[in-house]
């Protein structure tokens, strides 16, 4: 049987110039449930679908607030994201202590990128199996950064990563012009619509599985879950059919 001899570690190139371990790490990102992020002139928003391993378990956390001015959304290995987010929390606190300054988003993104890159060039290490969207507001205004396990980072206007995220990205590309001038509420709606595009046929956005992280100029980063996202879901999807949910979810009684 065919065996790949160049994927045992992350320090060996294949003859085609590829590093398979890094590519496999990117596959882990695609296994994670979808997250999207959008920025306007005044706000940065993250939206995510949470998954639960089984009916009886809780939902896996998808958005992690890091500092009062930003947070991250993750797709991929949640435990790797926890390591990275703890590092980001440390660095953010260090910046506040030594400079009395909220760490610039470009800087914190660069710092995790450097960490992730070193994992792809040192023997015995493995790349992080997680992709992140870093969204928030710093001295230069609202920002959204995309982080990949390879250590590649990019500043984005809108972005989606995770399973079936291509559909979300298509929605974002189609509506790109509207984002810059969008209001806080419009931006959240766009994020939720993009999220819904990526949903499997039989799935619905509910207050249980939807997470929204929002940050604005003069507005701290806050994670919205459960009852706090209900109104957004109602106003965004006024015309959808009533989902077969239990426990008094009169989200869309009719309309």
């Amino acid at each position, binding site marked *: 049987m065919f065996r790949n001899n160049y994927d045992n570690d992350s320090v060996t190139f294949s003859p085609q110039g590829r590093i398979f371990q890094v590519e496999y790490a990117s596959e882990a990102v695609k296994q994670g449930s979808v997250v999207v992020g959008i920025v306007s002139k005044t706000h940065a928003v993250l939206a995510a679908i949470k998954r639960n391993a089984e009916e009886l378990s809780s939902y896996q956390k998808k958005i992690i607030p890091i500092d009062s001015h930003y947070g991250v959304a993750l797709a991929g290995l949640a435990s790797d994201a926890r390591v990275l987010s703890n590092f980001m929390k440390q660095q953010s606190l260090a910046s506040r*202590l*030594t*400079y*009395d*300054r909220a760490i*610039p988003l*470009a*800087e914190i993104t*660069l710092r995790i990128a450097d960490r992730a890159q070193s994992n792809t060039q040192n023997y015995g290490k493995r790349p992080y199996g997680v992709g992140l969207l870093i969204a928030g507001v*710093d*001295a*230069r205004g609202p920002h959204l950064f995309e982080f990949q396990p390879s250590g590649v980072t990019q500043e984005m206007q809108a972005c989606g990563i995770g399973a079936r995220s291509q559909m979300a990205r298509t929605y974002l590309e189609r509506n790109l012009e509207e984002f810059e001038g969008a209001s806080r509420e419009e931006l959240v709606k766009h994020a939720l619509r993009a999220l819904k595009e990526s949903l499997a046929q039989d799935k619905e956005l509910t207050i249980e599985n939807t997470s929204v992280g929002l940050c604005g100029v003069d507005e701290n980063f806050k994670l919205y879950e459960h009852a706090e996202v209900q109104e957004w879901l109602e106003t965004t999807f006024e015309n959808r059919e009533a989902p077969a949910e239990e426990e008094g979810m009169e989200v869309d009684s009719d309309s």
Partner: protein
Amino acid sequence: MNHLPQAWGRPRDDVYGAYSNSFLQTSGPTTHTQSPIVTGTSVIAVKFKDGVVIAADNLASYGSLARFTDVKRLRKFNTRAVVGFGGDVSDMQYLDRLLSSLDIRENYAEESPDAQLHAKNLHTYLSKVMYKRRSDFNPLWNHLLVAGLDGENKPFLASADLLGTTFSSPTLATGFGAHLAQPILRRTVPDEATVASVTKEQAVELVKESMKVLFYRDARSMDKYSIAVITKEGVELKENEKLENQSWAFAEGIRGYGTQVN
């Protein structure tokens, strides 16, 4: 009898017990960094409605000897922060290099001027550096004034000393200036509320007048000085100013001055 040479002249072990070598230790804590050698004297600064004026003379003294007469003790950090150094000059030069590397690091990441470190950020950073070094029992023998604009582009003035102590006030002076210039500065700017009514011209005049008083009465000072004005327009730094309209007529009345004997 002990024939070993290292035992000669020492109390006998069998009579007095083993000799304690702890009295002979040549190593010990480093102490030469714990006192200043070449020093700069006062730095004075005052806030006004649009910014801050800061000044320091250009003398570096070796004890009471006026050793170096063109040492610039004000350092521009960027368009909205200036640091003034009193105390040891070599430690000032170390901090100068430290700030240069910080500046380079900052400019790799942040190219836009309003996202760069402002005076408040810089003061916080320097106070942590000073406190770290005093906690290592290896202090940087300086008293710093950080003058400039804060995050909201409002005037900012604060000090950090060799112990890491921080202090903020609309008028500040280090060293001898704390005794001689501070009361003069406070006459015009007694509190934060008055700052809004002080113009740039008034502030500069006040600082120049205080520098003159310092030259008259502080034996470690000289009449060449640097002065910087930090406003939203940027930093206006002059490093070769000379004290004008000096009058030593008052000196005749001072007991002990010149040839006067009683």
